[in-house]
């Protein structure tokens, strides 16, 4: 049985899935920032994806070098079936746990205000 995915790993895999053939470091980073509003470093994206690659959840291929990248090549990522299964399993687990309690969760979060949470 594969190890369950962490939150950041889920984000990475969803980004790879969203971007399809255009999933490479810079696009993935931007995708996550735009969708979640979180600031993510390019290095964190790379090391996270490399970890997923070593677990064979994603595969990589190298693209051509472009002048705008300073003559450096892109590394494209693709979601592998094992990665898809793992993401699905993790996501469903969270979904199951959240079922029926989302309205309460939203209500509680709203009372905490935009700063969120009590001290």
């Amino acid at each position, binding site marked *: 049985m594969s190890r369950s995915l962490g939150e950041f790993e889920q984000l990475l895999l969803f980004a790879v899935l969203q971007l399809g053939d255009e999933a490479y*470091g*810079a696009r993935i980073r931007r995708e996550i920032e735009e969708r979640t509003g979180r600031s993510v*470093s*390019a*290095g964190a994206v*790379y090391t996270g994806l490399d970890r997923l690659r070593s677990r064979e959840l994603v595969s990589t291929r190298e693209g051509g*070098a472009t002048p705008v990248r*300073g003559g*450096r*090549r892109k590394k494209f990522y693709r979601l592998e079936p094992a990665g898809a299964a793992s993401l699905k399993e993790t996501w469903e687990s969270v979904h199951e746990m959240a079922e029926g309690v989302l309205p309460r969760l939203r209500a509680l979060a709203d009372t905490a205000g935009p700063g969120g949470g009590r001290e």
Partner: protein
Amino acid sequence: MKGRPTPPRLASALLRWLPLPGREFVLGDLQEEYASVVLPERGRLRADLWFWSQALRSILSLGHAGLAETVRSAADWVRTDVRYGVRQLRRAPLTSAVAVLTLALGLAVTVSAVAVVDTAYFEPLPVPDPEEIHAVYTGNTFGGEPRPFGRTSYPDFLDYRASGSLGEIAAHWVRALAVSSGDFGPAERSVQFVSPDYFDVLRVDPVRGRALASDGATAGVVISHHAWQRDLGGDPDVLGRQVWIRGRTFPIVGIAPAGFRGTVDQETDVFAWAPLDPLPDLLNLSDLLTSRDLRNFSVVARLPAGVDDESMRERANALAGRLARAFPESRTAQDGRPHGITVRPWDGFATSPTARGETYAVLGGLGLLLMLLLAVVCTNVAGLLTARALERSHEMAVRQSLGASRIRLSRQLLSESLILALFAGGLGLLCAKWLLGIGAVYLPASLDLAVDGRVMVAGLAITVGCALAFGLAPVAQSLRGDLRSSFSGTYRRSGRRSRLLSVVIAVQVAASVCLLALGVSSLRGLRSVEDAPTGFDTDGLLVASLHWSGLRYSTDTLRSANYIERLRGALAESPGVESFSAVERPPLSDLHSDHEWKVVDRSSSPPLEAIQTHVGPDYIRTMGIPLLRGRLPRRGALPEVACVGVVNRAFIDRYGPGIVGRVLEWRACSVEVVGVVDNARSYLAEDGSEPHLYWTSHPGRPMSTMSTSAFVIRVAPGSENVMARTLVRRLAERTPDFAPPTIQPLDDFVGTRTRPQQTISRIALWIGGVELVLAAAGLYALLLHVLARRRHEIGVRLALGAGVAEAGWTVARRALRSTIAGVVLGVGAGGAMLTVAAPFVIGSAPADFVPYVIAASTVMLVVAAASVSPALRAGRVQPAAELRAD
């Protein structure tokens, strides 16, 4: 045309230069995003900030990932290389075991020596803030030569202390004196006499009791922890017990902490610290503490932290100048310059800096010997591993052809060497602990020998150094071989390495034979001396050795004569003493009689020569030497001539029977020969067959104190030990102002004389044994080497009809050459050394061939055992496999 926007160069360079995984892709991503998204949206400044922030955060992320990767690859190395290495070592268990044992032996000896030297010379004083402790030297002139590192007189020390210039200071002087306490001793022990503030200066608190009092009248001694344990049996009620130091009584007032040895050199084992006040009386030096000319004291100082060398020198010079003006006679040199004061940090050598040459030479020599030993060990282990590498060259060739790089193979082989060395290192440390236990018997008991953290680090460093030293040999072997010859199993190599190994083995065999022969010869000599008939009755004979400690030759003749008379009286009144006699030199106490051969009659032509011994009138009777003719000197009878003597049978045999009744003209007195006794041994290295004259001066009176070093005492056979203890107590009671004599049964007395030779002989046998093990390991390596190189040839011979025995002999005969050369060399060296050392060896017999036979046959036997496995392997070579390789 506007150029392409470039992100901050420094941030890019940082990311590019740091050795981080994936940095090229990350940099490409950041550059693309910078140029195509961030710069157009946010402007230059904010884009640059964004790039810097991304670059730094990425460096952290990638660095963290890189570190994790390094740890992962180290774990991978442990998993693969180490596991594979252990498997390889297990596949050749005999070779691995021999290599581990050989290396462990070398490491054990080296680590033990390192531990001893470290403890003796390099451990700081076990006192608080040891870096504040300094030695203070007073300059003087000797034979016109200035000596800056001299000792200090007591008045000078008092002036130093009063001046306050040298911090807190204390004086001390260590003396070896006769010490006894109850049923311990009397035995010679070192006592450090110290000024009252000695323990305060060192900040050492006794673990029990108190430190020394400054008042001489109530002063006691503080005993060392090991003296408490060793000499006083760890008695919990030891405080208040009495010890006698040269006949004077001191109560024990404290016990020093374990590990505290005082401020003495490494050979000195302090029994106790005593106050200075009684010292003039004990040493009969009345002005010891008042004369500025008696410079006997060492001075130890505790300088406050922060006093630099320059200011210390200025203070010392100022003090020396002041004292030179006040006491010009004792404090100035011939040229009028003041005797200087030098302050140096205490460094554990405890001797003055000018007297350290010998210590440095010994330590340097020891270091050289250890390096030589390790070099021999590493050569042997390298030989073993090279032979193994030759056997594995096929495997290495396969791995190379499958893509393994040379670096990868080298790393694998070095890993194997390191594993082997670490196994050996662990075993070596255990053996070192054991060796230190044995060696502690021969070293000062106060040296707290242990394999501590420092020694373990040194041991680990030596182990790794050895692993690299011998590990490179198989690596070089594997890298040099070409794939073709490796696959075919034919090796065209120069025999240079195996020739070097042969020479090393021959030298080791020679050393082993030589040391074994010396050890066996020496022990046989001792046995023959101990077993030889003495010519007197040894049962029930005690020897009481007196501890004069200088008084014997002192001018206080009345006191010393009184001492002898009191001993004599105590012995005469002791029940169980059948007879006793004073003697100039106890029987069997010395090795040779050479220096005692004297002309005993000048009136004859040629003059008569014989061994002579000055004895009391009851000596012959006490010793139980049979009287053959005439009579013995009679106690109480007033002689007509000054001296009366008896001669032994050998004297008559050499000079004729007419000697009885004659008066020998000898020295200033004449000796009337009144009888003939049977031959008896006086020395360990003689058989009693030499002419001997026992003479007694003034048979009616006691011998002079100058002639008396011992008493022989006759007691009932079987009661020797009980009587020895009883008599020591009785004599101690009767002569409390002197150290009681040591009283031993004759066998024990002889044992103390022969023990040093016994110890040296055993050490020679041990070292010879170690050499033999090393030689056997080296030989085993050599034969494996030979087998690997000639495997193909042996296969061909077997195919052509040669027998298994012949194949084995092809390999084993190589052992014969080195061994025979070594044995011949060893026997020659042993014979030469025995001949040179003969005058100093008890029972020496250089012509006795038995030790050489024993040594040579032992070595041959071990060598034969070491050759068995390689010879058997040669017999098991598969001809078909070897021929197929062609």
